């Protein structure tokens, strides 16, 4: 909402620097976005009179003018304009002046003759012909001699003042609970409260010219549910013409283009009272009947808007019809013949209350969200409709542009009853934690335009947001000053703590960081093509689909954190970051039935690539993570069925029955699909499964009292035998075994083709005595025998 300070000052005295006004209004609840002066950047341009005019000696086009610019001495200006004459009143840009486009004007010489500035056109003042009530030249200097206010602009007057363009425009951000502030009067009421000054609004008054409206017009409301009040007034013998300067300027300041006095009056009233109006030319109201009804199937209407095609009306739309046909869509827009034309003589003013929801739906359906419809949408009241209509008639009277027929047609369903709330200053203080006296509270509410009767607060009809004690508290608080309310800290009886699961997740994060992984954060919606790139199984691709995505790239909720991880690795690889370790605590989404919420699961997702990284660095990180999280006995089983991973370099991670996830090399084809030219290793761990697999509390075991003995075994076996198999045979058969550790793998000269050599250190210890060599040897012998049975022999 753009507010003209001049307009505001018609109703309240708020004469102060714009910054101070803006700050105080903002802190009082009406947020000011910005402000500017309408005349910016004009400066040093004055009203001047052409005293004399002579041809330039060296030019056929140039004129040398002597101007009286109120400077004492005449000012000489050379011009190429051809519409000047002696006695012409013109805007003169003196030395060091600025015109509308920001150009600075300084003195100089034109073909050897001194010129101390220039004279300018309306465009160079940033104006349009519509800003003048008389014809102005498009090509040439603005001549002010015909100006009705010429008496008020002696030579030397600043042009901004002379043409009344020295107005400050303040732009407010109005929240949608306060449609009343989308009007000059609404903001004037706020300003009156904020600055504690009186609001000077009087009831509109006007003279009528006799007759009786009921003899000339009939109004029927067929759907009172959607139209709670319809008021109409009649103005005859209208004189269509330009609006006076004060009205045109106020409209312009509010961002509305002046058109003609009658149209301008409806716009002016809408801006001032916040209530949209419409003006019909009675010639085009057939049978002199206005019917407010729902449209009939098949009806169409060509709108005022320059749309080629008439709009199709449908039965839920509320329209205004004459005796034969629709002439306007209620609260949205008039039909093409309903408006004011240059030869209009009799005008019907409409001020009505249409249902907000209905107007919104209709406006949306016909694709015409207008200034009027957006106001009706927010809910307008019948009291204001009457005030607005009367104000329009008052303006007819002030402008002297028509004769008002006696009487107003008023079709309404029931009388308006203002909302009444109980005043309870204690409740207000209880909510605010303040100590504002009853008297002060009542004073604030009166300043805001509320009526008070005993302990009852009477809500002005424009205030649709007032229903509860907390609403009263906000009114009191914002005018009293939010920042004047003492700050306290509640004594909470709650304890701030982390849940066990949160502790687990925090710990997992710390471990991941200490293992060298950088934490990433990625979008949780992805492109369905990413599943394709990664080669995920069909059943893993069933996703929660966004109905209105920004684009295909972000159209489904991911079912795996891996696509996002691969995107990040791709970006880093393409940016020539040659190695990296990443992890993310990432959520994935698994659809259930329609209109059922999906399952959301959190994962720890790891990704690593670059020199030195291989399957075992990835696996080692996961082993370390699981161990330090207290997850014992994690098993890594070869899995070649996950198409995302390299079939020979992928392990499924399980703890007992719990499937924790996978670790492996991303399938080279998938990595290539993501444009990554190196081996990429990833792991995904389901946090809930890992949490369930966590062991119990740590119990210390006594440090050994007796020495250990160790034996190194170099074994030879077929290539296909795994370390896991050998270890499990050793563990099963070795008595007194404390630990077994692989320390070498060898393939080559001394080992036959198709075989490999694995070397282990076995450590033996007894808890209660020193282990003898014989006992150790016996244990090794048993192990070797068992190994032999599965084809593993001593080298």
């Amino acid at each position: 909402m753009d507010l003209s300070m001049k307009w505001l000052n018609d109703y309240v005295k708020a004469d102060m620097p714009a910054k101070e006004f803006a700050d105080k209004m903002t802190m009082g609840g009406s947020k000011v976005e910005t402000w500017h002066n309408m005349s910016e950047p004009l400066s040093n341009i004055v009203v001047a009179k052409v005293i004399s005019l002579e041809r330039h000696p060296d030019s056929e086009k140039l004129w040398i003018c002597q101007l009286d610019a109120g400077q004492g001495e005449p000012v000489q200006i050379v011009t190429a304009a051809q519409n000047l004459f002696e006695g012409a009143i013109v805007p003169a840009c003196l030395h060091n002046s600025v015109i509308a486009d920001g150009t600075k004007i300084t003195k100089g010489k034109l073909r050897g003759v001194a010129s101390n500035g220039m004279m300018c056109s309306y465009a160079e003042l940033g104006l349009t012909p519509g800003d003048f009530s008389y014809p102005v030249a498009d090509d040439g200097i603005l001549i002010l001699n015909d100006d009705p206010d010429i008496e008020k602009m002696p030579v030397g007057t600043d042009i901004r003042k002379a043409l009344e363009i020295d107005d400050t425009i303040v732009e407010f951000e109005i929240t949608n609970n306060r449609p009343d502030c989308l009007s000059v009067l609404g903001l004037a009421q706020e300003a009156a409260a904020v600055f504690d000054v009186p609001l000077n609004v009087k009831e509109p008054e006007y003279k009528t010219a006799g007759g009786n409206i009921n003899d000339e017009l009939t109004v029927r409301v067929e759907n009172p549910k959607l139209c709670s009040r319809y008021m109409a007034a009649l103005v005859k013998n209208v004189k269509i013409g330009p609006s006076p300067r004060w009205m045109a300027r106020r409209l312009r300041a509010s961002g509305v283009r002046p058109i003609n006095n009658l149209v301008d009056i409806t716009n002016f009233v809408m801006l001032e009272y916040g209530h949209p109006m419409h003006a019909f030319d009675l010639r085009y109201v057939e049978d002199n009947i206005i019917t407010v009804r729902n449209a009939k199937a098949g009806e169409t209407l060509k709108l005022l808007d320059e749309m080629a095609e008439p709009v199709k009306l449908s039965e839920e739309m509320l329209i205004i019809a004459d005796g034969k046909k629709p002439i306007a869509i209620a609260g949205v827009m008039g039909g093409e013949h309903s408006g004011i034309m240059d030869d209009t003589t009799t005008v019907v003013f409409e001020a009505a209350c249409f249902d907000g929801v209905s107007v919104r739906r209709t406006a949306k359906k016909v694709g015409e969200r207008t200034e009027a419809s957006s106001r009706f949408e927010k809910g307008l009241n019948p009291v204001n409709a009457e005030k607005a209509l009367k104000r329009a008639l008052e303006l007819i009277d002030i402008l002297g542009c028509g004769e008002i027929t006696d009487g107003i047609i008023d079709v309404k369903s029931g009388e308006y009853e203002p909302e009444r709330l109980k005043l309870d200053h204690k409740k207000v203080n209880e909510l605010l934690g303040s100590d504002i006296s009853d008297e002060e509270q009542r004073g604030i509410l009166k300043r805001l335009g509320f009526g008070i009767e005993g302990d009852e607060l009477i809500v002005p009809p424009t205030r649709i947001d007032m229903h509860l004690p907390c609403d009263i508290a906000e009114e009191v608080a914002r005018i009293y000053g939010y920042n004047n309310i003492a700050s306290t800290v509640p004594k909470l009886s709650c304890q701030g703590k982390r849940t066990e699961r949160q502790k687990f997740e925090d710990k997992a994060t710390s471990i991941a960081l200490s293992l060298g992984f950088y934490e990433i954060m990625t979008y949780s919606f992805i492109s369905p093509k990413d599943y394709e790139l990664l080669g995920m199984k069909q059943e893993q691709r069933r996703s929660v689909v966004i109905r209105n995505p920004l684009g295909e790239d972000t159209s489904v909720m991911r079912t795996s954190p891996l696509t996002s991880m691969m995107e990040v690795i791709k970006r880093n690889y393409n940016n020539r970051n040659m190695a990296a370790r990443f992890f993310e605590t990432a959520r994935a989404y698994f659809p259930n039935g329609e209109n059922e919420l999906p399952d959301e699961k959190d994962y720890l997702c790891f990704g690593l690539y670059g020199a030195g990284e291989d399957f075992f660095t990835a696996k080692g990180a996961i082993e370390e993570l699981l161990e330090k999280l207290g997850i014992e006995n994690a098993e890594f089983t070869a899995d070649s069925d996950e198409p995302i991973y390299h079939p020979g370099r992928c392990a499924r991670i399980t703890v007992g029955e719990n499937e924790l996830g996978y670790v492996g090399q991303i399938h080279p084809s998938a990595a290539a699909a993501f444009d990554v030219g190196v081996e990429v290793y990833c792991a995904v761990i389901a946090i809930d499964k890992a949490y369930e697999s966590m062991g119990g509390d740590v119990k210390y075991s006594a440090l050994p009292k007796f020495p250990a003995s160790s034996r190194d075994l170099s074994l030879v076996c077929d290539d296909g035998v795994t370390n896991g198999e050998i270890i499990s045979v050793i563990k099963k058969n070795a008595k007194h075994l404390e630990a077994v550790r692989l320390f070498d793998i060898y393939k080559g000269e001394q080992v036959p083709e198709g075989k490999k050599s694995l070397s282990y250190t076995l450590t033996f210890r007894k808890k209660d005595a020193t282990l003898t060599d014989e006992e150790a040897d016996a244990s090794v012998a048993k192990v070797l025998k068992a190994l032999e049975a599965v084809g593993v022999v001593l080298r």
Partner: protein
Amino acid sequence: MKEQLQNIEKEALAAIGACGGLKELDALRVKYLGKKGELTAILKSMGSLSAEERPAMGQLANTVRKNLEEAVNSKNSELNSAALDAKLKAEKVDVTLPGRTRPIGVRHPLNIVLDELKEIFRGMGYTVVDGPEVEETKYVFDMLNTDEGHPARDEQDTFYITDKILLRTQTSSVQIREMLAHKPPIAIISPGRVYRSDTVDATHSPIFHQCEGLVIDKKITFGDLKGTLEMFAKRLYGEDIKLRFRPHHFPYTEPSAEVDLQCFKCHGEGCPLCKGEGWIEMLGSGLVHPQVLINCGIDPNEYSGFAFGIGLERIVMMRYNIDDMRLLYENDIRFLSQFR
């Protein structure tokens, strides 16, 4: 004999003094003090002396022995210490060469700041709760007084899955779930990701993070809201920081306030960071609307509460001078490794 002893002493001391190595020293010790050494040989011949001479010679011999032993010991430690010096000298390293380590990773900057927020609020007695991101409209809009027709529900602003299911636009849905599940007192924060249909640019992202807070108890006031947020801001930005509470409107709070932070760069003078305003918009807040309490089965006559919502990205970007939000989601390691 006396002369003999004195000669040995003189000769031995000279030899020990001139000795340059530990092995040589040991040879000298054996030569003079060993079982078959020269001094021992003389002592063995003491028996041939007269009874008068013996004590004096004995004493002299012992003194010589003592002197030689001391000389050997002292030379020994002298040589040891020289050997250690030489070794240390040889072991000298260039301490400016780089150290070797397995570098550790870094938390994402959004989480660095979120961790701080969590710690501040946990310290004030809050617990951290989580909830679904794909959510029912009733928890995101209906129960928060945001009726059908409210602009926030527009398809232009919100990602919908179906008419009834959407991607949450705020984490207030978690607060509703919490109020439905637990009786007051409630003191929670609900950090998490939220979704709005904004095209990606330097200051917009369709996914961003909020940290919302909710307190419900008996006699919670607007003053409590102010005090809480002031304490929070001081913990986050230091004791000198100033807040300003500005009236605003949210459908789910009444009274509502937007909270501005006095620009920490210019201290209110006006600078490019605060766009000349001296204040930076930080969060939205207010007393929980009684209808919201009723919707969640809480009696507004018995309980009251406040709620607030903080945008995480904004705080992170201001703190680290990040001028493009996209960097936070691109995860280039050259960006990530700048934090700690």
